[in-house]
């Protein structure tokens, strides 16, 4: 590890204070004075319409943009003092479209690119790539050309190529775009497992079921500011907030809000959760409960 023990300016994984970003051309404010603290191992979602400042915020987190005011400290490092390349060992950024980053002749070489750039030894690179291949289940594809594999696999290769650098903080931009349910499901599982291994995960997404499924904390952005920072349940239950941001809760949460919630039931995030609550109320505990569906 090149910079494994930074002079920790903050024990937090992400510590953003009063960060603003104004485009150098034309005084357009893209982010207006944002505060965000994320503890190591948290898994958070950022939602909001295009132009709300989500992408600007995440670009500040990995140093692609530098705050025009305030501070952004990620993994104990002040991003203003480091180049994007120097931030790479600290924070991984998975771009939305894997086609924007894949270029190598084989998947194996693609995965080696990042670790080599951050100056690891060949032995260490081999270890990390093997680990990423295993983690993402890419064993059958390592000799394939990244553009020859299917789009879902390409997406996984894109994420794996970042995870192979073993960044303690991982940002994913719209991981479910253009993916079917099956792939989204796989990606959700991987995000959870990464978090379980101690990675801090930041997921920018419009996909409400995805957020309901994996994140513990939702940051809602509107007009370049953070307007809410709460659990998915609290956010989805806040009708005015959802209306203000033109966002829609997952269908099952909507159903819960109009049925069991007024009776004191949970703001359910999954059909299984709501079903269990309804069954309890109708006096049919899950005596014959099986794992048939879910």
């Amino acid at each position, binding site marked *: 590890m090149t910079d494994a023990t930074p002079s920790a300016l903050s024990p937090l994984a992400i510590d953003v204070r009063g960060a603003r970003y104004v485009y150098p051309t034309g005084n357009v404010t893209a982010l207006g004075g944002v505060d965000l603290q994320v503890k190591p191992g948290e898994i958070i979602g950022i939602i909001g319409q295009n132009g709300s400042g989500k992408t600007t915020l995440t670009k500040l987190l990995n140093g692609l943009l530098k705050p025009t005011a305030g501070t952004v400290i990620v993994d104990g490092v002040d991003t203003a003092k480091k180049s994007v390349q120097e931030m790479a060992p600290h924070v991984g950024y998975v771009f939305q479209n894997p086609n924007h980053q894949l270029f190598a002749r084989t998947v194996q070489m693609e995965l080696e690119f990042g670790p080599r750039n951050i100056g690891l030894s060949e032995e260490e690179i081999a270890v990390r790539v093997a680990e990423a291949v295993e983690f993402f289940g890419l064993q059958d594809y390592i000799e394939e050309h990244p553009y020859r594999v299917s789009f879902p696999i390409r997406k996984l290769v894109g994420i794996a190529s970042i995870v192979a650098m073993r960044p303690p903080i991982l940002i994913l931009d719209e991981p479910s775009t253009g993916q079917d349910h099956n792939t989204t499901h796989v990606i959700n599982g991987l995000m959870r497992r990464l978090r379980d291994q101690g990675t801090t995960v930041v997921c920018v997404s419009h996909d409400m079921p995805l957020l309901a499924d994996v994140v513990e904390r939702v940051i809602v952005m509107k007009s370049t500011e953070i307007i809410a920072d709460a659990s998915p349940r609290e956010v989805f239950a806040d009708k005015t907030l959802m209306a203000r941001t033109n966002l829609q809760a997952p*269908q099952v949460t909507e159903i819960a809000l109009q049925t069991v919630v007024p009776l004191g039931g949970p703001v359910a995030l999954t059909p299984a959760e709501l079903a269990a609550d*309804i069954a309890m109320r109708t006096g049919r505990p899950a005596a014959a409960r099986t794992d048939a569906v879910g």
Partner: protein
Amino acid sequence: MPEPIIAFDAVTYTYAGTDEPALHEISFEIQPGEYVAILGLNGAGKTTLGLCVNGVIPTMLGGELEGTVTVGGLDVSEYPVREMSKLVGVVFDNPEFQMSQMSVAEEVALGLENAGVPYEEMKRIIPDTLELVGLAGFEERSPLGLSGGQQQRLAIAAVLAMKPQILIMDEPTSNLDPIGKQEVFDMAARLNSERGMTVIVIEHEVEVMARYADRVIVLDGGRVIMNGTPQEIFSRVEELAALKLRVPEAAELATILRTEYGDWDGPVPITTEPAVAAVNDLLGATRD
């Protein structure tokens, strides 16, 4: 029974340079004015199927097509794409890839210019079409300066100007934010209900399709494996789960209640409102 506007008869298609057919023995019919959702995993053949309808397959992409695709009574393999485009408009997932002009008006005009429509007529058609997609007054804006939702509606306007009877949208909202998604789906629903346009949407968002579609066709491995009303299809929760496809959460809820708790007897709801009503009935019945 009216004449179907689209008919696939035992269509098998193999892309040039590949061995495995992308579509196997596909047969189905679509009636004029239907709103059809096509579901399936990535690689199931959804896009290929869409390209067969406007004749890009086989006339532009080559490959080997067996069986016949008939659209508006015409065999698509016998007409150039530009002829078929008077019947069928297609838009793809990335609206920006479909833009080529300096201004919104010119983008809409392109198809008309190529068809030799006189200037006076264009002056009438363009504002009308922009009005239809909710972009009235955007004539002189640059397509590249529009939001994603506006760009996608412009891409749709550009094909609508040719007055097709069928609109095919291939994952039209996958690159859009929630506002953009809603704009596009609302517009498609209006074209379908008010103008009687036949709409075919290739989509992963089952909750939206449950609300709008008259029919759902499920593809898997290049074959049509389900074809029916949203109510019929989305009630088959276990089968769809086995195919790794999503179902509306309302349907999933009802199915869990039935299979795990024996707590659901009625039909499986596929949209929010009937699910809410049924759950409240269930809860009300126990409280009494």
